[in-house]
C-alpha cells in the first residue's frame, strides 16, 4: 500500500512515462485504486499529463520529409478501403491496459468524484425522467438484448440520449456486477456496470449506440475494460 506521497510520486513518474517496468503494474494498480476517491490526486494527474504534453514542445520542431506525409496519407486511404473484418480481432480478443484506464480516469477529473457524493435518489429520478422522455419520442429506436433469463431494451435516439431498461432481471451473484458493452468492428467498448434494483434496470447510457453494431452484457467482478466472460444478453443494432 503506497502512502499519499508515494502516490504523488508515482503520478509524476506515470505522466513522464518513466515508471520502471517492474514497478509499473503495481504502481498502476495503486493509482487505479486511489485516484477515483481523491480529488487532489486526480487533479495532479491531469495537470502533470498536460505538463508532459508541454515538455514535448521543448524538443523543438524538426523538418519533416514531405514523403512521409504522402506515406501516411496513403496509409489512411488504404485503411479506409480495407475490409473491416480482416483488420479487427474478434470480440474479447483485445485487452486494454490499465494505463489506458488510468489516462481516462485522470482526464475525467472532477465530475466523477463530485457526482459520487450526491444521493442516488435524485439520479434515479433523473434517469427515469430521461427514459420516459426517450420512450415518448417517435424518433427513438430500440435494441433488444436477449438472453436465457429474459431480456433488456436499449432505447436510443441517434446522436442523442440512450437508456438501458429492463424489469424482471435477476441480480448477478454477490460481489458481481453486470457490464454493458457496445461493440463495433469486433471491439467491445465498456459502457457501464450496474446491478438491477428490485429486478429493475434504468441506466442512462452516455455513448451513442447508433455508432455501434451490437450490444452485450456480461457478468464481471468489477468494471472491466475488456470482457472476461461470455455475454449473457446480446443484441444487434441495426442502422
Amino acid at each position, binding site marked *: 500500500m503506497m502512502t499519499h506521497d508515494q502516490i504523488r*510520486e508515482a503520478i*509524476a*513518474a506515470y*505522466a*513522464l*512515462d*518513466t*515508471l*520502471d517496468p517492474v514497478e509499473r503494474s503495481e504502481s498502476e494498480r495503486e493509482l487505479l485504486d486511489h485516484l477515483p*476517491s481523491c480529488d487532489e490526486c486526480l487533479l495532479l494527474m*491531469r495537470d502533470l*499529463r*498536460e*505538463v*508532459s504534453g508541454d*515538455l*514535448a514542445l*521543448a*524538443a*523543438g*520542431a524538426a*523538418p*519533416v520529409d514531405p514523403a*512521409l*506525409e504522402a506515406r*501516411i*496519407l496513403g*496509409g*489512411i486511404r488504404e*485503411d479506409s478501403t480495407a475490409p473491416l473484418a480482416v483488420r479487427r480481432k474478434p470480440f474479447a480478443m483485445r485487452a486494454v491496459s490499465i*494505463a*489506458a484506464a488510468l*489516462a481516462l*480516469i485522470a*482526464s*475525467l*477529473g*472532477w*465530475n*466523477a468524484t463530485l457526482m459520487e457524493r450526491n444521493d*442516488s435518489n435524485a*439520479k434515479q429520478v433523473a434517469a427515469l425522467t430521461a427514459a420516459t422522455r426517450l420512450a415518448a419520442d417517435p424518433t427513438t429506436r430500440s435494441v433488444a438484448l436477449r438472453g436465457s433469463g429474459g431480456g433488456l431494451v436499449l432505447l436510443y435516439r441517434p446522436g442523442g440520449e440512450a437508456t438501458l431498461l429492463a424489469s424482471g432481471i435477476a441480480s448477478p451473484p454477490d460481489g458481481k456486477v453486470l457490464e454493458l458493452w*457496445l461493440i463495433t*468492428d469486433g*471491439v467491445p*467498448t*465498456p*459502457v*457501464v*456496470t450496474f446491478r438491477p*434494483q*428490485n*429486478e429493475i434496470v434504468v441506466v*442512462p*447510457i*452516455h*455513448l*451513442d449506440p447508433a*455508432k455501434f453494431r451490437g450490444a452485450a452484457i456480461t457478468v464481471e467482478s468489477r*468494471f472491466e475494460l475488456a470482457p472476461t466472460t461470455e455475454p449473457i444478453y446480446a443484441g444487434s443494432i441495426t442502422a
Partner: protein
Amino acid sequence: MPPTREVKSPTQAEATSDMNHRGFGYEWSSTARTRSGPITPDEMQHPAPIGDLQDRRDRDLIAAIADGDEEAFTDLYRRYSPVAMGLAMRVIGQRSLAEDVLQEVFVTLWRSAKGYDPGRGRVRTWLLTQIHHRAVDVVRHEEAQRRRSVSVEIPSDPTDVVVEDQWLGDRSRRIRSGLASLSPQHQQVLTLAYFGGRTQTQIAQETGIPLGTVKTRTLAGMRRLREIMEGGSA
C-alpha cells in the same frame, strides 16, 4: 420480494458508474462519441484546461477526421508533424525510426478519431503523449542492444525550422525557458526521464542519485513546471 438495494457504498460504486457513463472506452479506439460545435454545459463544468482557440480548432479537426475528412487530417498532420518529429528525433535520434513512430501514431489517430472525448484532455496532449510513448518504447527496445549516452542539456531552439504556428512556437519557448529555470537537479531527472526515455531506476544507476531522491525530484520538478506554465511567469 425483498428489496435488493445492491449498491454497496454510494461512493465507490457510484463513482465507477459515473465514470463509465462518460465513455469509458479503449483509449482512442473503437467508437465513443464525437462532436463539434459550441461548448456544452458539461464541458464548462469540466474544464478542458485553458479553453484556448487552438484546442477548439483541434477538436473540430478531430470531429471532421472522425467523419473521414482527409483534408482535416492533413491540416492536423501539418500542424503537429514538425513538433512530433522534433520530439521523436530528440528521444530516438534516428530519422527513419522517428518517421515510423509518426506514421504509426498519426494512422492510429485517423482510425480512432471517433473515440475522441473532449473531456479527456487536449488533442495536442494526446497526440504528443502517444508520440513520446512510442518513441520511448523504441529507445528502450534499442537500448537492450546498445547503451547510448544522453545529454541532459535542454534542447536548443532549432533555428532551421520555422514552426508555422505562432502559438505553438510561443508555448514551446515558454516550456523551454521554464525548464531552464529549474534547479540543475530537477532539470537532470526530468530531462533524462522525458527526453532520454530512462526509467527511474536507470536514472538512479546512471547518476548515482538514490532512487527515492530521483522520485521526489521528478515530482517536485513537474510541479514547478506546472506552476510556471499555468502562471505564465516563465
